């Protein structure tokens, strides 16, 4: 079956766990050691939804690179965004909400999924501040990580913006 390539971009502040989410999703590994990403790393994974097979090209963008220069040069052609915040740090949620507003101007029709990572650190599994998100994940335990990428692929498949 022919694979359809789709570009997915993960955005979010430094140390919210973007790289860990990708490592968990693509390689099923997690490391406690934190090395902030330098630049952009691209990984791939195949996903089957219904009768289609998608080759996801997953762009891990360093948290310190979030600026509009980046949008013009590198985010063109993105099919979906995964906006990641740290469920234990409110400022990272605010950052992602601001980011989503800018993204809506640049890429109004591209699906965007907001996920709160590090749910394993939450007391009673609840986010302690007001937040509206699509999913909580844990890159450490792997909880809901597969679902996050699958939901995003479904949204691409359904053509949802």
């Amino acid at each position, binding site marked *: 079956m022919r694979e359809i390539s789709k570009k997915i971009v993960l955005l979010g502040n430094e140390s919210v766990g973007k790289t860990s989410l990708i490592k968990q999703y693509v390689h099923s590994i997690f490391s406690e050691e934190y090395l902030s990403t*330098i630049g952009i790393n691209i990984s791939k994974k195949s996903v089957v939804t219904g009768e289609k097979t998608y080759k996801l090209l997953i762009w891990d963008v360093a948290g310190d690179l979030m600026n509009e220069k980046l949008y013009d040069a590198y985010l063109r052609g993105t099919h979906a965004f995964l906006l990641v915040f740290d469920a234990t740090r409110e400022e990272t949620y605010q950052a992602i909400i601001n980011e989503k507003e800018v993204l809506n101007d640049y890429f109004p029709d591209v699906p965007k999924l907001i996920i709160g990572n590090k749910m394993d650190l939450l007391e009673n599994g609840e986010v302690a501040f007001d937040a509206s998100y699509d999913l909580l994940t844990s890159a450490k335990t792997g909880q809901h990580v597969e679902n996050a990428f699958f939901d995003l692929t479904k949204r691409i498949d359904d053509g949802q913006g």
Partner: protein
Amino acid sequence: MDKDNQRHLLEKLERLVSENQSLRLENESLRELVKGNEPDSAKVIGYNNELEQFTYVATHDLKTPLANISGYLDLLEMDLENPSEDVKDSMKWLKYSVQEAMNVIKELTSALKARNDKEDLLVEINMNNLVESILSGMRSTIKQKEVLFICNFTEIDHFLYYQTALRSILQNLISNAILYLKPDTDGIIQIQTEQIDDSVCISVEDNGVGIDLEKNRDKLLGLFKRVTNDGSGSGIGMYIINKLLENYGGRLEVESEVGVGSTFKIILPLKKT
């Protein structure tokens, strides 16, 4: 035997004696020449041994100060009261760099130990990990120069090769790419892999100053030869890359355009276990 024949024979004998004499002289001078060359081969072996000895001593002697730095960093970290995030970050990268230097020493030591059996050094390369480790060691330069790295190893990210050699090759290529970026343009360096038949091609592409290959192709791989006149670079990096590829298998290809940038491709044979 008549007199004429006798004279003829004597003449022949004299000629033979004379030819023999000149052959002996020629032989002796050749022997002298070979003797004269002998010390050169011995010199080469001597240099080689010296180099090996030097590497042993350097790796051994560097271990102690590095261990000291590491220990003092731990002490310093314990003594720091409420360090700022910047200080914490600097401490973290200092420790990381020391650890990386120790890893390089460890790799060099095992490379020397296994020198006679190169196959022992053949390991599975994880491109993501290798490049991440190289870039992390250059983090402060990358930040200072605001270089954007784009790494794409989706086509092939695991293959067999010699880790120490590949680390050195990539480190030199990446350092050069950073060094020759244009000061007035946002620097972008793309590193990617591609599988071509039975080879893996690793390319390091930059948007730097570029090289006039028509003028400089011969200079490019020479020792202490620089392709720019601005005094940057030592002229050793490309020579090392070429020697490593000659020794461990592989070749280098260069595409470049002045003012646009360069792409260095290293093509390595895909080895089987």
